[in-house]
């Protein structure tokens, strides 16, 4: 981890656990916490911190695989639940997604740009342009069963349909988390790290919905460091961040962030600390021009995703006192 992001991990873990207990008592009024366990670093660290704050008997993990998610994700989720000694439930959401038309809508949209796309093919969306001073655009990558790949720019209509369809995944998962929370009188814990929260990398009313987001202030590198500090199993500490949403392996930097998380962390930190593009360029080994584009991209994403954080707009104030 870059030294500018160094924190006292033990002190930070204590602070977060105090915050979780305080939120439970003062804000939420629930008896425990439910969270979706993807096997990724963020939900794993959140699970461990929740257990440290409330005890293992007050934390429920939900594993929600579907046909496009990696089996490794479920394996890591189970590994962590067993490591922490918490209760967990596994519910495959493929059937619900199928019923809602998630896969059909997505595949219909893909066939608008790749007519030969068929069962057995895989897909993902990648972002292009931001690092080169271009306006961000999205490209569809498909792979036939023989492993042949095509990559094409996505026009607006199929792009929106693919995103809308795949967002069902995050929203169905959150529906299940709240179902379990209601059943147990628990609150739902959300797992975004600072990059995701700052840059709006979440689905509104999907993974963005939660009662408490205890690591939203931690950079991704700090989350990895916290995982090691909390002595989580090695396969989790060494995992690569993926969206686990598309059938082809997709890094978060391919889909949303312009850079790998280690560099994105520094870039967001640098912007917050008012570094110059020149200083950022030296720190993450890009050109000064690229560093300026990175700052612009971060600011634009903040601005254009702000509504994702907002409560519904009311046209007149409504007192709740």
């Amino acid at each position: 981890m870059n030294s500018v992001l160094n924190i006292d991990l033990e002190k930070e873990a204590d602070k977060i656990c105090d915050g979780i207990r305080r939120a439970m008592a003062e804000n939420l009024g629930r008896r425990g916490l439910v969270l979706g366990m993807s096997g990724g670093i963020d939900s794993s660290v959140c699970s461990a911190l929740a257990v440290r704050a409330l005890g293992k008997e007050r934390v429920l993990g939900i594993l929600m695989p579907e046909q496009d998610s990696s089996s490794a994700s479920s394996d890591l989720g189970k590994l962590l639940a067993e490591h922490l000694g918490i209760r967990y439930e596994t519910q495959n959401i493929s059937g619900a997604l199928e019923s809602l038309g998630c896969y059909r809508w997505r595949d219909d949209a893909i066939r608008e740009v790749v007519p030969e796309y068929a069962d057995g093919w895989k897909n993902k969306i990648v972002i292009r342009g931001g690092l080169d001073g271009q306006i961000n655009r999205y490209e569809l990558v498909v792979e036939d069963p023989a492993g042949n790949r095509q990559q094409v720019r996505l026009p607006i209509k199929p792009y929106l349909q693919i995103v809308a369809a795949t967002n069902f995944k995050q929203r169905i998962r959150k529906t299940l988390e709240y179902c379990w929370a209601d059943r147990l009188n628990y609150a739902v814990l959300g797992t975004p790290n600072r990059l995701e929260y700052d840059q709006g990398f979440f689905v509104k009313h999907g993974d963005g919905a939660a009662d408490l987001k205890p690591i939203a202030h931690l950079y991704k590198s700090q989350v990895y460091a916290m995982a090691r500090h909390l002595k989580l199993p090695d396969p989790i500490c060494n995992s690569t961040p993926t969206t686990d949403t598309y059938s082809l392996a997709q890094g978060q930097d391919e889909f949303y962030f312009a850079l790998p998380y280690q560099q994105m962390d520094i870039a967001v930190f640098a912007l917050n600390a008012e570094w110059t593009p020149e200083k950022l360029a030296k720190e993450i080994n890009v050109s000064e021009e690229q560093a300026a584009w990175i700052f612009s991209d971060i600011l634009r994403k903040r601005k254009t995703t702000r509504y994702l954080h907002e409560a519904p707009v009311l046209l007149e104030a409504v007192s709740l006192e």
Partner: protein
Amino acid sequence: MEATRNQVRQYILQNYLFTEDESALSDEVSFLDSGLIDSTGMMEVIFFLEEAFSIKVEDEEMVPENLDSVNNLLHYIQKKSGKAA
């Protein structure tokens, strides 16, 4: 050129500002920096350009200098239309 300017302005005014008030849109303001249009919105603008002016926006042309204000759009449409002619 004035007809094109009007067509572009009306598209932006109606679809992004939800107004018929011409004074709400300055021809030189950056869509992206002002927060008027985001990257998804720019994909819609590209669809509009390709449909309304029968041009193909190439990947390398997706830069702010071509697309990020009414004036930039007009220069770009003019350049592309000239090329097509």
